């Protein structure tokens, strides 16, 4: 008979090993899924995980990796702070959209003035927009004890409607011949987030790296980070030691909102280029998987973000070459989270095999 015994401390080795095991199991289960769809599983897995990095056309795909990973890492870093403390912001997609609208709105307001100050101002507006959108669930939670999970999620749908309204109305390109969507910010040198488009470098990557370092220092060297971890691991102890839950909620939700807003701004002024009805592609939700896959650890999130970016790019290649449906990748990403959560058992509990009746 199998028995579970709670470990006094989560195992460190397994904590690092489980994401890797989960990836391997997902590859196997994904292979079975692809086989069920009538594709060669080995070819599909190779196309997704090998070709973008080391394949024949890898030189083309490698820069893409950073383009996709940057918003995922940026958002996931913010989410991980809250998740650590048991504060669940799952509306990052909404904060991402609002950040993009605010940032792009500021940029478009200055069009066609050229100035070095415009882009920093846009970043600020994007961060503020995302922050403000996240402050809605934060303040409601602090003031009325409202569940932040549901409020932040509802605001995603509100943000999507707002995005539709903006791209058809206020921010619509006046020279766009009536098509929905804003001016293309890539044609406006002062407002583009590309540092070097050919090399696939934009400011979002720089900020993602800064966010990783910032989060690492915060969690390991600062009292605020200690309080976040304490609240998550021992809420009672945190209360007795005088941690202010209100400040913690405002900080965690606000920071994750600001980072998601910035991610939205970098995306809209770079890879996406314009505000349009469907410029958001669900990074805010995928970032949840990234945060868990990275064990809510900044460096882990960086690696998990790159891996998830790989599945996006590999998925696109497989779509083109093998006719693998795009939804298959979504299923693949969902499975990864499942296996990861299931394997967490090994980190927190010791599995013991005992003869029946011995207990």
């Amino acid at each position: 008979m199998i028995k579970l015994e709670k470990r006094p401390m989560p195992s460190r080795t397994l904590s690092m090993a489980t994401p890797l095991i989960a990836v391997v199991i997902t590859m196997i289960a994904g292979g079975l899924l692809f086989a069920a769809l009538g594709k060669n599983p080995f070819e599909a897995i190779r196309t997704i995980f090998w070709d973008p990095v080391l394949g024949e056309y890898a030189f083309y795909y490698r820069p893409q990796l950073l383009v996709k990973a940057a918003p995922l890492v940026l958002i996931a870093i913010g989410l991980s702070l809250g998740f650590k403390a048991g504060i669940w912001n799952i509306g990052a997609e909404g904060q991402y959209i609002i950040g993009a609208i605010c940032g792009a709105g500021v940029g478009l307001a200055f069009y066609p003035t050229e100035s070095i100050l415009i882009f920093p101002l846009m970043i600020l507006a994007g961060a503020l927009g995302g922050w403000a959108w996240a402050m809605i669930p934060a303040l409601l939670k602090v003031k009325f004890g409202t569940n932040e999970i549901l409020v932040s999620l509802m605001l995603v749908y509100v943000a999507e409607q707002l995005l539709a309204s903006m791209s058809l109305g206020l921010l619509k390109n006046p020279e766009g011949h009536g098509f929905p969507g804003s001016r293309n910010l890539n044609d406006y040198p002062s407002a583009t987030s590309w540092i070097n488009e050919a090399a696939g470098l934009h400011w979002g990557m720089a900020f993602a790296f800064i966010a990783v370092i910032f989060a690492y220092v915060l969690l390991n060297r600062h009292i605020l980070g200690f309080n976040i971890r304490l609240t998550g691991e021992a809420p009672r102890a945190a209360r007795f030691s005088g941690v202010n839950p209100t400040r913690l909620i405002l900080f965690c939700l606000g920071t994750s909102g600001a980072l998601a807003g910035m991610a939205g701004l970098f995306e809209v002024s770079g890879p996406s280029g314009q505000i349009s009805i469907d410029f958001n592609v669900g990074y805010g939700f995928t970032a949840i998987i990234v945060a868990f896959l990275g064990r809510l650890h900044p460096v882990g999130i960086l690696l998990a973000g790159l891996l998830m970016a790989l599945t996006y790019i590999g998925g696109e290649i497989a779509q083109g070459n093998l006719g693998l449906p795009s939804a298959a990748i979504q299923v693949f990403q969902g499975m990864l989270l499942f296996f990861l959560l299931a394997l967490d058992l090994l980190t927190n509990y010791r599995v013991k095999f005992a003869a029946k009746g011995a207990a």
Partner: protein
Amino acid sequence: MDLSAINPVLLIASLMVAATPLLLAAIGELVVEKAGVLNLGVEGMMIVGAISGFAISVETGSPFLGLIAAIIGGALLSLLFAFLTQFALANQVASGLALTLFGLGLSALMGQSYVGIKPPAMAKLDLPVISDIPVIGPILFSHDPVLYIGIALCAAVWAFLKFSRGGLVLRAVGESHDAAHALGYNVIRVRILAIMFGGACAGLGGAYISLIRVPQWTEGMTAGIGWIALALVVFASWKPWRVLLGAYLFGGINVLQLNLQAAGIAIPVEYLAMSPYLITILVLVIMSADKSRAPASLGRTFHASQ
């Protein structure tokens, strides 16, 4: 704008149709939460139910078989959640989110070849004479059978929780799993059954959208109804009849805003479409003042460590 184009009788009749998927999903989730489990995967189970029901009824030509398939589909998906939270002792919030993300992907994958197809129609109740009575007829006696099942289910859940022994055990497990375990009840089994019931209801609710309300298949067509159902359980303070009331209220808001869109009111379409979500937030804020009614063990992991 022409408000006279809105017919109050049709409005109430369509309100009941709009409320039914919400009602089904919320009543299922209510039972799950009464057992002390928070399953945030309602949206995922609904959309999987929507496509399983749609696919099976298109393939077999029978909407009835489709509904059965949706119930099975929702319950099967919920088993994944049950495994994660009850055996692997995973965090319920994270597992529920995983279920929703996975369900959305899975449904998109399953539904690829079903876009743009019309499903076989579900027969409506048509009683001679009674269904033809003006006002009362269209409102009460000429709907599809699932709508009545939803109301009956609400009554059944109420009676089960209030009067039956099983209901008492379920509530005990939700209030204090340690005490229930000490009394010899199998906490894990009760919770798994509750989770499966929730999944079956969510699946049926999803199929109601794709087979009867819309009826068509489009990716992500549940559009947050599963999440609103979760909010509805809070709104109802975990009471079945208030779930019914809440579902009709939300159904009414949704139908009204659609009617206002059609009537060409001066408010832009996007802002009207936001209203159900904004009102959900408002309701959550009002209801969150009173936390005392939530099952005491809600969201906590149970592990019988002798």
